């Protein structure tokens, strides 16, 4: 979910090494194959005696399709049947030393490396057959998991060759399959788990059970920093299955890797009994200094911070002159709320803790962070910690934090037996790791039908500043800055600055977080400026990209650069204009809005078409054009765009978490609404036929849609939405703009 992650991968992990996975000693990795008869060909590939190919892939499946991605690449380059590949998530350890999935970076970081890896494995299998039959390599081919010698009509299965192949040196010149010979890559492939998912056989974290396990529900301090004074569990004894309770002590809000609250864990023989008993527990809390925290006060603080923002993120031309030499100067303030992830599977984890070992089964995609946290809590060495990753019922960034799994460890340790902790939905809403709210002060100018000045003053909370302040460079958080810096337009006078705060509440990554803020505000503001210039949204943007050049922005700590290829954006916009029928007549009450975004090298734009009647928004259609390089699996790309759009629409229309007296007000899907089937528009996704490198799709689909929605509302009604969510803003009198 953050750019650091992918760069960390490149910088530090085995995945980034030039020798790739095969630099690992073969058959000496300590990874046990599911099929013990099988042969471990590398740290990452095991071929079972039944011919099944087992991959140990350190990137986590959470609905975004990375297991399908790795299985497809393996089946393609190894020449095996797609259904014969099984993907497993390993526990962190040698070769898997920085396990974290996020930043829409998995495809980009691993596609080429996976191909090279499997090409090398296939070459070793061919080499083994060549030596066995005493025939040249050139006389062999592979198909359906077999090496075939056409001249003699002989063939051997990979399972028969695997042992001999594993003794061979690793080739460094194994040829990749030519793209024109792809059977699977570039075509739609089904989700590797689809059959299990439609039959209820798929096992998620919440479905797991282990021997001797009890169920836990946790009653936490209602306010960050609250301390337990006393508890009375007498009423709990009326609940059948109640087994007792244990106290866990929390830590400071800025603790790394996670802040944990003081709490009392209620133990019971089943999940329901645990939560029933938890509700009856009588607890007295010392609430502490955050008991007065509320949203209006914090938003006022952010507003003051925005005006005083001093960290310059990007500066070009002369802003003062741009604002003076203008036909028209505009100013506005934009605001956005805290947002919760609310994945359908609530947080949960199973923990087994002994003096010598700790095993945690947790739906997380930050396994190495979890290991660090477990070691901190237990004092165990790394090789005494095992993390098992089941299927994940949605994350959207939530499970990059591992607080729930560490709570399970503390409870299991205190209870002296295996524990499964299950959060209720109410806990999920109240104790989430929220996306930051924001206030932004915008200024701009137009002259002669062009946007000539653009000023953005950003204030928000920083994920890093609270728990990982060492990630900041001279106080600047680049995860906040970079999505703003990449403003793609050639505007002569630009100044973007930011101020971040460390909120006394753990915030987190939310489908990339800061692009959902920066791209929303920038594109809404561009719509205002373009409207003031009297221009069409497409025409004006195309003219501001007219050079078609590539601009680059460097991360301050040397992690590399983020690029905007204006020629790719021009193509995206031109295709979108056609496909969205932008220039066709609109029905009464109908409006259209355009927004675009560049993130993680994926260039995309969307048009939202909606109708407003009596203040009610009906979403008619969203058209999305995306350039994410070579389309590995067009079906996954389309699904991620559809899902990302719906995720963003939920936020635009309804999404809002608020605090009163230090506590989250919202509690369930009743007051934190998400889009339903009925409210969902038609969605059309078009993937640009691109020669660019593969880039990610898990997050970017969300980034343009909030701004496109706000601009469509303006087109339909003349009402500017400058504060999200839209909620009932259209139902009361609003300032309008001519």
């Amino acid at each position, binding site marked *: 979910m953050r750019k650091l992650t992918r760069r960390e991968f490149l910088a530090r992990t085995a995945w980034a090494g030039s020798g790739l996975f095969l630099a690992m000693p073969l058959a000496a990795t300590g990874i046990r194959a599911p099929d013990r008869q099988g042969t471990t060909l590398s740290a990452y590939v095991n071929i079972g005696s039944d011919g099944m190919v087992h991959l140990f892939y350190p990137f986590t499946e959470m609905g975004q399709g990375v297991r399908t991605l790795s299985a497809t690449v393996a089946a393609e380059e190894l020449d095996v049947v797609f259904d014969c590949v099984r993907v497993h998530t390993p526990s962190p350890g040698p070769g898997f030393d920085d396990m974290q999935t996020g930043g829409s970076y998995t495809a980009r970081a691993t596609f080429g490396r996976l191909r090279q890896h499997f090409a090398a494995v296939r070459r070793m299998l061919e080499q083994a057959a060549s030596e066995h039959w005493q025939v040249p390599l050139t006389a062999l081919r592979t198909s359906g998991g077999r090496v075939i010698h056409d001249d003699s009509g002989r063939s051997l299965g990979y399972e028969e060759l695997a042992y001999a192949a594993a003794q061979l040196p690793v080739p460094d010149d194994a040829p990749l399959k030519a793209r024109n010979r792809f059977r699977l890559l570039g075509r739609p492939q089904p989700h590797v788990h689809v059959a299990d998912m439609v*039959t209820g056989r798929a096992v998620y974290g919440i479905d797991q059970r282990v021997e001797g396990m009890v169920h836990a529900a946790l009653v936490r301090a209602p306010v960050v920093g609250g301390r337990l004074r006393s508890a009375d569990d007498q009423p709990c004894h009326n609940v059948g299955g109640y087994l007792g309770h244990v106290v866990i002590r929390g830590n400071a809000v800025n603790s790394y890797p996670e802040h944990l609250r003081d709490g009392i864990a209620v133990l019971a023989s089943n999940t329901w009994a645990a939560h029933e008993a938890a509700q009856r527990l009588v607890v007295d809390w010392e609430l502490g200094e955050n008991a007065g925290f509320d949203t209006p006060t914090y938003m006022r603080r952010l507003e003051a911070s925005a005006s005083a923002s001093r960290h310059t993120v990007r500066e070009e031309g002369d802003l003062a002159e741009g604002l003076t030499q203008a036909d028209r100067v505009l100013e506005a303030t934009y605001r956005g709320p805290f947002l919760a992830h609310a994945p359908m599977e609530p947080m949960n984890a199973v923990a087994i803790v002994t003096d010598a070992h700790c095993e945690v089964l947790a739906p997380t995609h930050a396994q190495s962070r979890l290991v660090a946290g477990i070691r901190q809590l237990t004092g165990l060495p790394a090789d005494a910690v095992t993390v098992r990753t089941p299927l994940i*019922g949605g994350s959207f960034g939530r499970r990059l934090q591992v607080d729930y799994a560490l709570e399970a460890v503390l409870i299991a340790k205190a209870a002296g037996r295996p524990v499964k902790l299950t959060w209720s939905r109410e806990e999920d809403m109240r104790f989430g790791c929220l996306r930051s709210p924001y206030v932004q002060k915008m200024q701009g100018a137009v002259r002669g039908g062009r946007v000539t000045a653009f000023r953005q003053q950003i204030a928000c909370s920083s994920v890093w500043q609270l728990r990982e302040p060492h990630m900041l460079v001279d106080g600047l958080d680049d995860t906040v800055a970079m999505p703003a810096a990449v403003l793609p337009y050639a505007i002569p006078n630009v100044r973007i600055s930011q101020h971040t705060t460390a909120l006394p509440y753990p915030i987190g990554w939310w489908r990339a977080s800061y692009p959902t803020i920066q791209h929303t505000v920038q594109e809404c503001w561009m719509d205002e400026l373009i409207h003031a210039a009297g221009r069409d949204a497409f025409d004006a943007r195309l003219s501001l990209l007219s050079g078609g050049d590539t601009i680059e922005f460097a991360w301050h700590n040397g992690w590399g650069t983020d690029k905007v290829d204006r020629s790719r954006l021009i193509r995206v916009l031109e295709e979108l204009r056609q496909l969205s029928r932008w220039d066709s007549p609109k029905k009464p009450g109908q409006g259209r809005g355009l927004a675009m975004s560049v993130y993680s090298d994926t260039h995309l734009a969307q048009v939202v078409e909606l109708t407003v009647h009596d203040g009610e928004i009906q979403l008619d259609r969203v058209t999305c054009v995306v350039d994410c390089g070579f389309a590995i699996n067009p079906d996954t790309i389309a699904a*991620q765009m559809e*899902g990302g759009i719906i995720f963003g629409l939920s936020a635009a229309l309804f999404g809002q978490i608020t605090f009163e007296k230090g506590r989250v007000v919202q509690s369930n899907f009743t007051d934190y609404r998400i889009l339903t*089937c009925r409210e969902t528009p038609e969605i059309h996704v078009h993937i640009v036929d691109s020669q660019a490198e593969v880039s990610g799709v898990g997050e970017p689909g969300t980034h343009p849609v909030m701004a496109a929605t706000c601009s469509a509302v303006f087109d339909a009604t003349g009402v500017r939405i400058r504060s999200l969510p839209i909620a009932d803003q259209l139902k009361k009198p609003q300032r309008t703009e001519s």
Partner: protein
Amino acid sequence: MARIELRLNGCLRTVDCDRSMPLLWVLRDLIGLTGTKYGCGIGMCGVCTVHLDGDPARSCLVKVADCADREITTIEGLSGSGEHPVQRAWMAVNVPQCGYCQPAQIMAAAALLARNPRPDRAEIDRHMSSVLCRCGTYPRVRQAIALAAGRQVP
């Protein structure tokens, strides 16, 4: 505690539990059928949807004692191994992302088609709005139901 006999997926099952325990947790924790999921506990999200006498029901709200005389069908009992037309359509359209709500989406869709074999788009939308999906698979849910109903994709 009470001993309750249930007709579940065509079999008789006996459970010993509190009479007010929701069917959801009886299925998941006592019987071990985990295809039915917990999502909100208040009947809002629908991911715990099962069939009671063929009608969709939210198992997080139904007390187990109230199921004693009813035929309970969960995702595990919808078909032998995924050959129900709705499940086949779901696979053909590749609906799931994270997959967590999908058993409930399928149970809701199967109940709709049992009562109304040719639902139009508005009927699909109305009926399927009872089950939330955070991944945003709704466009494919619509497509899959249309496919299962033997209609062109809307």
